[in-house]
């Protein structure tokens, strides 16, 4: 029981530290939201608007930073994330909830697929070391070292077009209204194909590489020989013995990447105009939209910590030796 309490205290502390840092760090960026907005518009917004914007964002009253910090916690504990500046006056929660599902669906599914596929290929590459499977690694690394946006743009150039089944941008057809109907879902899936493919191809090599290396590490352990001696099928030895034992680092990496899903993938979202969180965060940083930044950071924090917790549990399940005695 006390172990659990200790864990909880540990996570609460980490969350506090992370949230605090995420509160202060953005405020260290020079400038303020109004200036950022003015600069962004480059003359499209007259200097006369400056005052009204300060008033609008409530930045006209000078408050010491610590006071803002306390207020922030006050708000947070009431479950209030504040109003976004960029999308003023939409509440941050609303802004995030409009983009989160997209990110979760796209990045979530691709992360899972990329992990499964990558780990699978990694298992093969490690197991069949020295055969043609060795090629998989350089080829996939080649693909993943290509900058995301570069790859995405090339894909758009090559695959997308007016008559292609791959739309080049957006989360769904401009014509359809979001809802749980065939039209919308079909359109959403269609729009997610290229971004998903891009993410998949670019992120797979990491899983392959680490899995392969771990497979190589465990491949000559005695229990593998024993498994062979038992006459188990090659598949069973490869999966049940070698891969199972090599899996730990990948699983912990996977848990972490699950936590980071909510952060979205900035460049893919930019290239494919995908309505996700990553792009929003990028915008928020550019616009110094503190409330939105904090909101997104908060969600990332919570989900990363949750993922960490899952990872911790996963170790216990996957490797009994990591369990502490006493």
């Amino acid at each position, binding site marked *: 029981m006390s172990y659990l309490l200790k864990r909880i205290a540990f996570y609460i502390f980490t969350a506090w530290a992370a949230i605090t840092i995420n509160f202060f760090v953005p405020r260290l960026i020079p400038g303020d939201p109004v200036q950022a907005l003015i600069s962004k518009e480059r003359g499209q917004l007259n200097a006369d608007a400056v005052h009204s914007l300060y008033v609008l964002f409530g930045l006209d009253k000078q408050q010491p930073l610590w006071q803002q910090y306390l207020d922030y916690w006050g708000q947070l504990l009431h479950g209030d994330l504040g109003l976004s500046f960029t999308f003023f006056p939409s509440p941050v929660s609303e802004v995030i909830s409009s983009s989160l599902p997209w990110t979760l669906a796209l990045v979530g599914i691709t992360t899972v697929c990329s992990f499964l596929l990558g780990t699978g290929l990694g298992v093969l590459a490690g197991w069949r070391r020295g055969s043609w499977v060795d090629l998989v690694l350089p080829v996939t690394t080649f693909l993943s070292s290509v900058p995301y946006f570069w790859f995405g743009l090339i894909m758009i150039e090559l695959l997308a077009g007016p008559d292609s089944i791959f739309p080049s941008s957006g989360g769904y057809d401009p014509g359809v209204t979001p809802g749980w109907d065939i039209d919308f879902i079909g359109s959403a899936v269609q729009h997610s194909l290229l971004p998903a493919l891009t993410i998949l191809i670019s992120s797979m090599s990491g899983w392959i590489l680490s899995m392969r290396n771990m497979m190589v590490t465990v491949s*000559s352990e*005695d*229990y593998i*020989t*024993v*498994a*062979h*001696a*038992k*006459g*188990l*099928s*090659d598949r*069973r030895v490869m999966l*049940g*013995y070698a891969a*199972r*034992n090599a899996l730990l680092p990948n699983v912990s990496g996977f848990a972490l990447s699950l936590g980071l899903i909510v952060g979205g993938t900035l460049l893919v979202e930019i290239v494919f105009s995908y309505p996700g969180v990553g792009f929003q965060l990028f915008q928020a940083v550019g616009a110094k939209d503190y409330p939105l930044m904090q909101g997104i950071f908060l969600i990332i924090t919570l989900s990363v910590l949750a993922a960490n917790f899952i990872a911790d549990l996963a170790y216990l399940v*996957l*490797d*009994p*030796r990591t369990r502490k005695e006493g």
Partner: protein
Amino acid sequence: MIEPLIEIKSLNVDYGLGDEAVHAVRDVTLTLHRGEVLGLAGESGSGKSTLAYGMTRLLPPPGVVAGGEVIYHDPERGPYDVLSLTNSELREFRWAETSIVFQGAMNSLNPVHRIGSQLTDAIKAHDPRGSRQAREARARELLNLVGIPGDRMESYPHQLSGGMRQRVMIGMALALEPKVVIMDEPTTALDVVMQRQILGELVQLRERLGFSVLFITHDLSLLVEFSDRIAIMYGGRIVEQAPAKQIYTDSLHPYSAGLLGSFPALRGPKRELTGIPGSPPDLRAMPTGCAFHPRCPKSFEPCAQEIPVLGVPDAPGGSDRTVACWLHPVR
């Protein structure tokens, strides 16, 4: 002991290839008969484990089988060479026909699987149709056989003592009731009560099922007690091979004699132990002639010149023994 079960014919096993190769097993010819317990003893590093793994093709890299044959006399299919089997044939052959208890038994259990599942998966691999309950019951039975309470099915290997892990491996080896069980120092971590109990079970089982055992150990007293025949290895070769009692009472090879002079007795007056002076030969730079001659108290002229061949000695004691020593010219 009429029928041969496994005939090893001039088996050579190397570590490494080409010039770098270490010849760990040289020209070993050995026959394991149906239903017999063949003891294999010898100096540490003399190639016992290498022989055991080489003949089953389980030697990890850089081990290679450099030549020879391992003829298995399958009661149903007739004799075939294990070394020529394809990988999938070999997989079927393994555990069902020949199971093996590794020397590093303490380390040969997969640390992340429970004991129970490691016991059952071999059964499953060879009999995919059996029910899970049946497999588990069998696993429990096997654990009991080796003196481990059934509630340890759920334990992970690191939660067991060294001896318990060894016993799990022994139990596992018996899971499919194979024709041959190769045991490489299976009892190093077992107390004598347990040893006796398990070996007793083994002997009973053997009587019931008629399998054969290749038993590698350093415990000569145990060997003499439990095996029918004993082969002694030195420097990668078999130097002597004879019925257990005969080796004990009347060993021909000076190395065997040295071994027997080295083990302490539990009962009776403490006697002087002699040991064998000198150090084991270097596998890379074997002495010429008989590998043992630099340490041999009785070495004489031909020993350094030519390698003695293993053969039936021209000495009293019957024809069911062989020795490779110039002192005992072959018939």
